[in-house]
């Protein structure tokens, strides 16, 4: 990686998420299957899939801010997740795409897949508020 590495948050580490690759300079996050991410037997829990999408989305925003030379913090406003396919008991990947990065907010799409990136198991749509540097924030 060319930019400074992104430390994944405790929540992501607890679910064993790691940066496994990059697509167009944006980190791809991987999450192995385990009991702690399982919903109904044999399938991923929707909340764990959402968690993976969010970590990928946040990583994408941080990368986009870094690319602009910004050290702003972000605050999540909302998230919508569409669940398209059951997540099977295998490795899952996710990557975020910042569709617009403005001065006050970022629009992000995130995609989670297993074997085939063209067959997403879930898509997330997020809005983040861009805040001034943390020490300046109220």
């Amino acid at each position, binding site marked *: 990686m060319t930019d400074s590495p992104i430390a994944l*948050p*405790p*929540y*992501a*580490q*607890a*679910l064993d998420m790691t940066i496994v690759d990059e697509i167009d300079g944006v980190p791809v996050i991987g999450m192995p299957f*385990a*009991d*702690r*991410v*399982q*919903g*109904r*037997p*044999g399938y991923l*829990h*929707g*909340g*764990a899939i*959402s*968690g993976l999408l*969010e970590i990928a989305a946040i990583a994408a925003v941080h990368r986009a801010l870094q690319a602009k030379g910004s050290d702003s913090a972000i*605050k*999540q*406003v*909302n*998230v*919508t*997740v*569409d*669940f398209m*396919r*059951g997540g099977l*008991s295998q490795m899952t990947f996710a990557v975020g795409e910042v569709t617009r990065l403005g001065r006050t907010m970022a629009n992000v799409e995130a995609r989670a897949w297993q074997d085939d990136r063209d067959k997403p198991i879930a898509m997330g749509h997020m809005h983040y508020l861009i805040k001034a540097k*943390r020490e300046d924030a109220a």
Partner: protein
Amino acid sequence: MAFGKPDLGSIVPKGTEFDPALVNKMMGKFGHGGFLDMEYVGHGADWVELAIDWREDLVADPDTGILASAVIISLMDNATSMSIWTKLGEFRPQVTMDLRIDYLRPSPSGERVYGRGICYHLTNSIGFVRGFAHNGNPDEPLAHASGTFIRIGDRIS
């Protein structure tokens, strides 16, 4: 299947009144619900409330201790899902079609988070849900949720 647990259908036999407290002993104690250690709080005719205790490893930002957003999603997913079965009075296999969460404020460090899921309409195939999360006072919500679940019959994928 390595992580197989009894299917919900087997502990909620057809014709038995749906009991969210009993079902949460499985949904909240095994798998992802177990990892988050979801607790049953209460229910009414069309709602179920669950809770998750704050924990260091559920945090999004170590500097602030704010809970990861996905913890709220999981909480609202389980609570709204169970509100459908509660309104229906019985279990039916279903999956989450979509779920939206609006964050009014973060869930602060050390605070237990409660999620109330409400089923406001049911059709033969779709359950329409909404809900909110709070830190102990339902009049001060931290997030609002809305979503839909689709019945999957006996099909499991």
